[in-house]
């Protein structure tokens, strides 16, 4: 059974537990002896089942059961045991209050973790105890014929709750005193000259509102770079210097440029409030970095990014290897012959598009020619991509070439929010279709070979039942500079959940990391050169595409090709272990790339000792 199913079963069992304990109490208060006994026995059985379920869940990781083991189960087992003993020894009437106590204990054990998420702290436990005790006192007062000293008993209960509230409001303990700041993040600039043999590639991007027209004729009020969405594709050859001048025409909330997956020097990262101030209307900013990573990447605004990216402030960044380009001039049959397409998937006002094509985009390619499709998920939720009509290879993920990728057919690819996959195949005689989310009626790419009549066949194959290609076991292993057995200098754990937390000074039902929201989640502090392992645990019921700026991470425990990713989907109940070398000093955003979740608190910083920021806010 999957961890997520176990979490759901546990919730269900806990719910039945609340119902049976409270039911027994109500039956007792109504003087129904047989019903009371039946419900009490059921409650005991359900509670034991929950203990068993939690036991199994504990095998998936302590993070999934912490609050259940230290608080919820001991409380309901203890109070429930008292209730049962009283019921047996002194009868139904005497058991009314203890049974209510068990019901309220079961209730707070179920509700309290849902309200505050992982981890359960002492303060929260005290508040929960206080609530359950107060409710039990009220029940006692109203079910007992005799006078109950409610007011006198309420005092210690209130004190208990208030101490809990106080503990919750205490500021989180800070880590060791910060080392002196030797460098300011915004001074960690990129080089100003290309690598030997490279040239300078200059681009100008002006952020402005514009009405864009999708291929179907639908027009969308978008936020754009240079009036188009996606923005202009930025291309370079390995070793070039990319220089982009950003200006903001009329985006009131401000804009930046973040180079997603590109490990640029910190000051070029485009994280407002950390590496630069957001560019206001009328303002500008120049980004400069070396094109030293080959592959498929993308850029997008990082200011109010949940809205900005959704409305269209993004574009592709593709860097091709220098060898290919050199070959091109010499040999016309080399890779220059490749049909190389960049396909950003984006949802504009609810309409899924590949680039600006929201319907079927058709293309004719001579059979035998190599085809490379670079799929970029620019949305905040994952997409499923299926290729119909040909065998293909996944040659790169997140810009990084896979080792000995094998042929794939009849399997779909899951692309996380912000992630990229490069698919490659020689054009067959027939037709090939790329489907997004198994839906041939929406944005599709149809490539026709010689026999154009087979196009419709290719596009109407039902891919819904195709299994998902497991990238963790795809390709073959290759040496990596470090692995699961390396000695790590730092070991961080991020437990993702939901709960009440402060986000930018506002209390909300936040998307939390270790129980806190941005900017109150403690920084991950590293020293340059550290080998860092990060464990990401998803306790929630939503997918969290995790994205670290400035570093690509190696997924630990793969059985196929090494996987170096900048964005990985941590699905509900999953635990991911990744590692990276701290080799890019600065202060880096480390966040969920479901940008709505980031806005709701799921973001923190990876910061190097000795680096500080002069900016504040987002």
């Amino acid at each position: 059974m999957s961890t997520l199913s176990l979490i759901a079963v546990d919730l269900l069992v806990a719910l039945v537990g609340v119902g049976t304990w409270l039911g027994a109490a109500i039956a007792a208060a109504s003087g129904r002896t047989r019903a009371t006994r039946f419900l009490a026995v059921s409650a005991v059985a359900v509670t034991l089942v929950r203990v068993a379920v939690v036991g199994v869940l504990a095998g998936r990781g302590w993070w999934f059961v912490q609050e259940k083991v230290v608080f919820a189960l001991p409380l309901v087992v203890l109070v429930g045991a008292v209730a049962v003993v009283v019921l047996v020894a002194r009868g139904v009437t005497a058991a009314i209050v203890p049974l209510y106590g068990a019901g309220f204990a079961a209730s707070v054990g179920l509700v309290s973790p849902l309200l505050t998420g992982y981890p359960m702290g002492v303060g929260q436990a005290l508040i929960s105890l206080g609530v359950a005790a107060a409710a039990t006192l009220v029940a006692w007062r109203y079910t007992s014929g005799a006078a109950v000293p409610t007011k006198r008993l309420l005092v210690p209960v209130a004190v208990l709750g208030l101490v809990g509230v106080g503990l919750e409001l205490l500021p989180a303990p800070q880590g060791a005193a910060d080392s002196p700041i030797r460098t300011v993040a915004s001074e960690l600039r990129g080089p100003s000259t290309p690598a030997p043999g490279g040239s300078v590639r200059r681009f100008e991007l002006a952020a402005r509102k514009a009405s864009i027209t999708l291929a179907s004729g639908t027009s969308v009020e978008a936020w754009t770079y240079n009036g188009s969405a996606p923005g202009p594709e930025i291309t370079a050859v390995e070793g070039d210097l990319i220089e982009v001048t950003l200006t903001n025409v009329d985006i009131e909330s401000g804009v930046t440029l973040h180079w997603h997956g590109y490990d640029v020097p910190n000051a070029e990262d485009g994280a407002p409030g950390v590496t630069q101030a957001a560019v206001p209307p009328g303002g500008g900013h120049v980004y400069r970095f070396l094109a030293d990573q080959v592959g498929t990447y993308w850029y997008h605004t990082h200011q109010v990014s949940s809205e900005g990216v959704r409305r269209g402030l993004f574009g592709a960044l593709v860097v091709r290897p220098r060898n290919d380009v050199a070959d091109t001039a010499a040999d016309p049959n080399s890779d220059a012959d490749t049909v190389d397409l960049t396909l950003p998937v984006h949802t504009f006002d609810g309409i899924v598009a590949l680039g600006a094509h929201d319907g079927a985009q058709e293309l004719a390619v001579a059979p035998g020619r190599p085809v490379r499709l670079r799929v970029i998920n620019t949305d905040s939720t994952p997409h499923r991509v299926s290729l119909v009509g040909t065998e293909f290879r996944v040659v790169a993920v997140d810009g990084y070439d896979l080792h000995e990728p094998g042929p794939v057919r009849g399997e779909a690819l899951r692309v996380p929010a912000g992630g990229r996959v490069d698919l490659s195949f020689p054009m067959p005689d027939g037709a090939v279709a790329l489907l997004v989310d198994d839906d041939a009626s929406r944005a599709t790419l149809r490539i026709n070979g010689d026999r154009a009549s087979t196009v419709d066949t290719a596009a109407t194959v039902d891919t819904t039942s195709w299994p998902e290609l497991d990238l963790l076991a795809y390709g073959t292993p290759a040496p990596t500079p470090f692995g699961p057995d390396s000695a790590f200098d730092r070991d961080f754990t991020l437990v993702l959940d939901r709960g009440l937390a402060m986000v930018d000074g506002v209390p909300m039902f936040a998307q939390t990391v270790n129980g806190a929201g941005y900017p109150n989640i403690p920084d991950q502090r590293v020293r340059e050169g550290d080998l860092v392992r990060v464990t990401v645990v998803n306790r929630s019921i939503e997918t969290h595409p995790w994205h670290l700026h400035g570093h690509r991470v190696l997924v630990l425990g793969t059985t196929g090709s090494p996987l170096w990713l900048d964005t990985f989907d941590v699905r509900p109940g999953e635990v991911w272990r990744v590692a990276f070398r701290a080799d890019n000093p600065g202060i880096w955003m480390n966040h969920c790339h479901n940008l709505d979740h980031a806005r709701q608190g799921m973001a923190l910083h990876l910061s190097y000792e000795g680096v500080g920021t002069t900016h504040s806010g987002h």
Partner: protein
Amino acid sequence: MTLVMRRVYVGIVGLLLASGVLQFYFAAVGAFARPQTDDSFSLHLANGRMVFPLLAVLAIGAAALAKAPGRLIGLTSVPLGLAILQSLIVAVGNALGGATEQRTTPLALAILGLHAINGMIIMGATSAVMARARALLSAPTAPAPAR
């Protein structure tokens, strides 16, 4: 004092009822919003997660202070319990039914549909609380003094 608290009790339950009606209205707003985004149901979520539960807790407190009988206090806590159940239906439905962001499953939908049924039960329970809270208003505040 008790009479004032009983009026306050009726007032809070009235607000609770209004919040419940609004919740249906906001559900329709979310269902018909184009394009569907994370924000389509923001009013439904804010009212359902914050306003309704808060009013429900206040109603229980007011019932106790208004010296309502134990049964009525118990009945007053039903809307809160069912409101919590509303969130659990969504969580358990999606998780147990194997639904993803992209696609629901028949099993998930079969469970998720209960969200609407439970919503109606919440309204029924809240209305029942309202009727008894108003009846309490016209009841004597204290036992008649012995002559």
